[in-house]
Every structure is written in C-alpha cells, then in structure tokens.
C-alpha cells in the first residue's frame, strides 16, 4: 500500500484584486504518495503555482490545511516551517532564481541551509552529472537558460530532499534541456524521492505517475499511469 508523504484538505486562497478578489484556490484537496511523480497542468492563472507554493509552506492558505507526515505545516511557527523546508523540500522555478552574485557552485551550496534529512549529495558529483563542472565558477549571467535551470536543479537536489516542487521548470527551455530536466527529476523519483511539477505543457506526461488538471482554482480531472 502506498505511503502518504503529504496531503492537503479544503485549500482555498483568495488574492485581493481591483473590484473584488481572485479565487486562486477553491477547496482543493490532494494526497501525494511517497515516490510519486505528480504533474499539475492547467492554463495560466488557474492556481497551479499557488497550489505548489502552498504545498511548499511558502503561501499560507485562506482556508484548509497542509499536512506533511504528522505535522500541519501552517500550524508550525515560521522558523520551524523554514527548517522543514530547508530539510525536506527542493524548489525549482521557471525563472531559475539563481542568486546573481554567487557562482554556480555557491548557488548549489546555498541549497544547504540546514542539516538535510538525508546525507547531502556531493556538489562536484551533482555538477558533473548535470554537465556543469566546467561552469562551476561562472556567475549565472554567464550561463545559457538550460545551464541556469540545471544549476537550479542541482541546488534543489543537493540536500537530497524528500520532495521536489517544480514550478514550470521547462517553461524557458528548449526541448533538449527540458528533456534533461525531466530525466533528472525522474531519476530523483527512482531513488525514492517525490516530485510535484506544475506545467502548462504536454511533454511531461511520459514521466508522470499521476496527472492533475486544474481550472479556476479547482482540480477538475485526474489520470494515473
């Protein structure tokens, strides 16, 4: 029987907007099993990024709860939630969000904010496996988009987290680099990790163990491989 890694129940999140508010999440409930590769699809503005950041303890929901193991994330003090995120979660973003004044190597090292839950991976091995060894000392502005995203992926993987949350990780990449990113995420899953990816593309389906489709803040369809 599959083991639950995290779950959310009745998640709602509204953002203030001119003339009212936007309901980014509307009563979303979801259970993510350990070792799953979950893809969340949907058009822009459907709430998938909000869901991802909420699952990662970055965005407090207006209503509902997120449970990881036995802990209700938003019931934890902010410092505890930071520690949890530092130990258990690796983030990958569409815009890479590499720190512009740090080298590739130091950007990866920045992913080790706290002692990880598992033994961290060697930065050299990671850079080597992502074909970034010769760019280790380069600053982000000297890298191609593909190299930047691979560096961001290395930063997410270095602490050997339980969960990787990726927000449109291939949105700015060519097909070759997009394939590399998904292969690495898939490889992470094969070593026992769990992946939740948000995308509006179609090229991720082969890697997904489950695909969810969102519209207007709700999960409207779900398919499992």
């Amino acid at each position, binding site marked *: 029987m599959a083991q639950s890694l995290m779950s959310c129940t009745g998640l709602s999140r509204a953002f203030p907007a001119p003339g009212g508010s936007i309901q980014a999440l509307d009563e979303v409930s979801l259970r993510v099993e350990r070792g799953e590769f979950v893809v969340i699809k949907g058009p822009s503005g459907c709430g*998938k990024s909000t869901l991802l950041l909420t699952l990662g303890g970055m965005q407090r929901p207006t209503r509902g709860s997120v449970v990881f193991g036995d802990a209700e994330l938003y019931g934890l003090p902010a410092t505890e939630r*930071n520690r949890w*995120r530092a*130990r258990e*979660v690796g983030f990958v973003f569409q815009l890479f969000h590499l720190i512009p004044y*740090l080298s590739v190597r*130091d950007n990866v090292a920045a992913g*080790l904010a706290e002692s990880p839950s598992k033994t961290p991976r060697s930065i050299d091995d990671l850079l080597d496996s992502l074909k970034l060894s010769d760019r280790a000392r380069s600053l982000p502005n000297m890298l191609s988009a593909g190299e930047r995203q691979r560096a961001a992926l290395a930063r997410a993987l270095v602490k050997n987290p339980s969960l990787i949350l990726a927000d449109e990780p291939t*949105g700015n990449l060519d097909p070759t680099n997009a394939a590399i990113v998904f292969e690495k995420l898939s490889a992470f899953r094969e070593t026992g990790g769990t992946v939740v990816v948000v995308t509006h593309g179609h090229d991720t389906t082969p890697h997904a163990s489950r695909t969810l489709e969102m519209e207007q803040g709700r999960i409207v369809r779900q398919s499992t491989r």
Partner: protein
Amino acid sequence: MVVGQGWKGSRMTLLSLILREWRHHWINALLSTVGLTIAVALLVALRMTTGAAERETRRVMRDLGFNLRIIPKTTDMDYFWTHGFSDQTMPESTVRTLADQSGIFVTFNHLTPALEGRVALAGASAILTGLGETIVSPHEGRQPMGFRIKPGEAFLGHSVAQRLQVKKGDTFELAGKKLRVEKALSESGTDEDLRIFTSLRDAQAVLQSPHRINEIKAIDCLCLTADQDPLSKLRQVIETALPEAKVLQLRTLADARARQRQMAEKMAAYATPLALGFGGTWVGLLAWLNVRERRAEIGLWRALGHGSGRLAGLLLGKAVLLGLLGAAAGFALGTGLALAAGPSLFQVTAKSLQADPQLLWKALAWTPLFAAIASLPPALKALADDPALSLRAD
C-alpha cells in the same frame, strides 16, 4: 567547499555574501557610501570648525578682556567710573566663596580676583592691576582666560612702557618693589595703555592691602545678547551667591561674545540635523531600491529555508559595513576639509586645528548604527513581504 555542513561550512559566510552582493550591486553600494561619507564629512568638519571657532572666540575674548566686573556692593560708583576701579575692598577669599557656590559656573566662569589702584611712576600716574589665579569651571578642561603673571613680573601697557623706556627683560621699581618686564603690550587705545599688570601678591604689597581685592573679573556663560536682558539674571545670581557684591556687565564685549557663540550654535543646530537627514534619507532610499531589486532573491532565500534572522543579517549587515566605510572616508574628508579651510577661517588658532581621533571612533561607532537604522524600514518590509509573490511563474 565543504559538503554536509551546509553553506555555513563553505566559504559563504554572511560577510562573504554581503561583500559579493556589494560587488554585484556596486553602483548602489558606491552611492550609499558616498552619501554616508558626505554626511560624516559635514559633521566632522563642523565639529572641528565649531571647536576651533570656540577656541578662536576664547582667544579673541581673552584679548578683549573679561566682560563682567564683580565689585563690593558699597562701591562709590562716581569714584569707580572716574578712576576705573572700586574704592572699596573685600577679602581675597571672596572669589573662593563665589566659586564654591553650587551651580555658579552655569552663569559665571574664569573668576579672577583683582586688586587695582593708582600708583605714581616716573613722574606720572598709572593704574596697577594685580591679577590672582583664575578659577575655571571644574567640569571643563578650559585654559583660564586673562594674563598669567608670576610674582616679580609685570606686563606693561603701551604708554607706561614708553614712559619708562623699557622692553621685555628690563627691570623697574614700583614703590620699592623691583619688577621684571615680561611683556610690553601693544597700543590698545584704551586705559590698558596706562596699566601695569602684576601678580595679585605684588599688587597687594605695593597697594598695602594684603589679602584684599576690590574686584572679581569674570566671563558670563549665559551668552545672551543685550535684548535678552542677561544683566538681571546675572544680578539675581550674585544677589544670592554674594550679597556683599554687585555685578557690572561690559555690554559691548558681552554682546560680541554672545553673538559669536550663538552664531556657532545656530550653525551646528542647522547643519547637524541637515547632515543626519540627508544621510538617513539617502541611505534609506538606496536601501529601499536595493531591497526592491532583490525581492526575488529574498524570496528564494526563504524558499531555501533561511530564516528572517539571517536575511536581516544580509540586509542590515550590508548597511553596517557601508556605515563603517562611510565613517572612515567621511572622517578623512571632513578632517581634510577642516584642515584646508582652517587657516583662512581662524587666524589666531589655525595651528590648533588637528585631526581628532575621538571623532574617528565616534564616527565608526555611530555611522554603522545610523546606516542600519536608516535601512531598517525597507529591510523590515522586505521580510514582511510575501515571498511567494516574487517567485511565482503565473
């Protein structure tokens, strides 16, 4: 790079991160440093020139003379104004009695006992002025004003020196007492030209009034101009402290001194908040721009699990470092400006104008704190902002 100990085990200390960010956003760092440097330089130059102006004023006033005369209450004022000194005396200890009164130095300073009288010299008369040791406020390290004359020495007014045809080092006799000319004063155009200044002891011996004085010369510390009615305040204090005496104020001198002092205080009163306001606004604005530019980075540090304390350290640590640099550069610039402008501003005391290490320590202590306070509002806002907003893709 040490793996397994986190970034704290790597080369990325907080200081290293701050310095790298500084290098990356060098224009912002440079402009912040320039702003702090200018503010510190203004304050250092102002402090140095204000101090020099005070010294200059003191020297000029010393040359002008005391502006208060405390004389026995029973003095015949017709005699006083006709002869230039009181016909009555009081015990020499009166000056100590006055100095020992609580809070007296709030109003009076440089209390100098004096005995004055007319003497015959070389077929004409002169005014002998014996000056005792000046008592200054114990809380101020100020040099006493007025002449310091040792027993057996004399300072001669211009006319007296001419009449005796003596110069420095010569000796002359006064009522059987031999005195050495320590200084022949230049022509003043006042009754000083007719005076012989000696120590109080010598004057008491010549005038045969041992342990007596007929005046306490002083400077008023109120520094009020005539329209602010300082005399009634001075008289109130003397009435309480020394009922057997009364006080006269040489208004022209007192006004000149008060105006000079008030001008320096006004300059400091305007320039200090101006420099602090300019520096604070400048640094705060640049810190706000810096934080705004780094929103995504701050969000990312949060996503990586770094807490508010470390982020505050990144943002405020930068301000502290900029403050240290601005303090050192501002001290150097301000000191240089003051030293360069000194000779043209202060003719008498220009040489006493020099770099003050205490100002450097003060600048190094206060400027980083000031820069951190100025950067605090944008830093707090950055920490309070929702990090998710800067990280989301849609």
